[in-house]
């Protein structure tokens, strides 16, 4: 598909020999923790020059929708192409790159390996520092690409694979104070969507249906223990299924939109309620929303309202920086870059990786 896969950048693309302003360092970041292959070039840790994501490139092909790149082979096929595309869009060449950032974990090991090997090869060939980066730190620091972060801050991470409340006492100091005990929010949405007969992944359909609903089937809230910031969504999922079954037994058609609304309200109440409670308890000066589910309209609206009520500034990155992408990895790696906390070339991909231990 690409006409050339030379690893050496061809200077012929650049007619003008544009020199970078000397006040900038460039990080090239690679993210391959799950479905996406993504490469970004970011200046000074905050200015995104390019942020290429494989699924967006794939849309012009004849697949009809997102092609999961779960298999390592797919990442391998995309990698060189996407590195070239990221450099071209940023209008830089490989020798201009000052450091390489890469998602080290957590994630699918085979997928992570591809990014890690590419990153190590680049770091070695260019003789520049390598920074192994935590995927969730990336999601959180996507916020640093859109605004300044005030500490202490509470980050609410909501995605297909993660639902976590993280306290940032200062820059790069992570403390995990809550996490899901079963399904992540995104999974809960997708599973309820399955029950409501939407195709996978159906989270966005449920969001839309909930927005349009005129009625609501009130469903239980899962607050767990009073002092816990953990989450559990499997009971709520069961409640939705039970409601559907109950309607069917009575020969009625389940009220899908009212159920979607009830489910969404329950999730949002608990997630935002716990985030606000954490912000109060830890004296947060800012709330950070991040992860793919940050695109959920109901969630954004409610969290915006609640933060306004208590006078807490809220940052939410644009959708492209909420889903898995490499620019966010550069943003997180930048904290280590400025502190010269580099990784060695024997860096290993980690399927399971602690966020707290990754702190600066």
């Amino acid at each position, binding site marked *: 598909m690409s006409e050339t896969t030379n690893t050496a950048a061809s200077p012929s693309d650049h007619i003008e020999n544009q020199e970078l302003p000397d006040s900038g360092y460039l990080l090239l970041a690679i993210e391959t923790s*799950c479905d996406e292959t993504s490469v970004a070039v970011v200046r000074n840790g905050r200015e995104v020059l390019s942020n290429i994501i494989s699924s967006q490139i794939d849309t012009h092909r004849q697949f009809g929708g997102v092609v*999961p790149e*779960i*298999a*390592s*082979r*797919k990442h391998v096929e995309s990698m060189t192409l996407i590195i070239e595309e990221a450099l071209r869009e940023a209008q830089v060449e490989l020798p201009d790159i000052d450091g390489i950032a890469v998602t080290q974990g*957590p*994630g*699918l*090991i*085979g997928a992570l390996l591809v990014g890690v090997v590419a990153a190590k090869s680049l770091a070695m060939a260019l003789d520049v520092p390598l920074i192994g980066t935590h995927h969730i730190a990336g999601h959180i620091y996507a916020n640093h690409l859109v605004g300044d972060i005030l500490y202490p801050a509470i980050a609410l991470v909501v*995605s*297909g*694979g993660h639902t976590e409340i993280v306290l940032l006492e200062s820059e790069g100091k992570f403390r995990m104070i809550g*996490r*899901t*005990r*079963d*399904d*992540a929010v*995104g*999974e809960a949405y*997708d*599973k309820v969507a*399955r*029950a409501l007969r939407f195709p*996978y*992944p159906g989270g966005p359909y449920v969001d839309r249906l909930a927005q349009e609903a005129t009625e609501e089937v009130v469903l239980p809230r899962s607050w767990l223990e009073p002092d816990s910031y*953990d989450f559990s969504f*499997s009971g709520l*999922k*069961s409640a939705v*299924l*039970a409601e559907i079954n109950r309607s069917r037994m009575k020969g009625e058609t389940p009220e899908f939109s009212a159920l979607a609304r009830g489910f969404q309200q329950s999730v949002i109440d608990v997630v935002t309620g716990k985030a606000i409670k954490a912000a109060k308890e830890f004296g947060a000066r800012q709330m950070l929303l991040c992860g793919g589910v940050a695109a959920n309209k109901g969630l954004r609206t409610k969290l915006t309202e609640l933060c306004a009520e208590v006078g807490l500034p809220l940052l939410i990155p644009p959708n492209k920086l909420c889903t898995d992408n490499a620019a966010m990895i550069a943003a997180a790696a930048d904290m280590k870059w400025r502190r010269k906390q580099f990784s060695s070339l024997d860096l290993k991909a980690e*399927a*399971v990786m602690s966020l707290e231990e990754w702190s600066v």
Partner: protein
Amino acid sequence: MMQGKQTDGDSTIYVRVAGTVEDTVAFAEELARLAGPGSVLALDGDLGAGKTRFAQAFAAAIGVKGIVNSPTYTIIKEYEGDKLPFYHMDVYRLSLEEADELGLDEYFHGQGVTLVEWASLIEPILPPERLHIRLETTGAESRRIYCRPVGSEYAGWCERLKLDKSDGEGESTT
């Protein structure tokens, strides 16, 4: 007949009735005592049947500390148990071809025990010996747990677990 389906050999289906969540948890614990390196549990059941709950109980019983949550999004999660590593998979969103490309064999034949949720979706690439478990919802908490061993080792497990033989109803023959 020399050539047969993988399900041939021992097609007996066993059943355990669990009246409460505790009963299901206890069954997962009994299974955990039999598991060793390379054990493969192929788990099925409808949405909300308790597959992840079952996996959590099993993981706890082989000494996995901390939270074992759903692997739906990441497909595979690996844990270190006191007794064995635990590989927790959910193949719901994979096609057979994608699953094949993932190289799951390395887990199946690895040092740990593998539990695959929605395993029937990838039955052709499951290892030749495994224990199929299907959770059927019979009430809010009650479940009928069907076990279908493939291979002599797992047939042995079912005997040792003193499971009842099922008339086969409810267990699909896919």
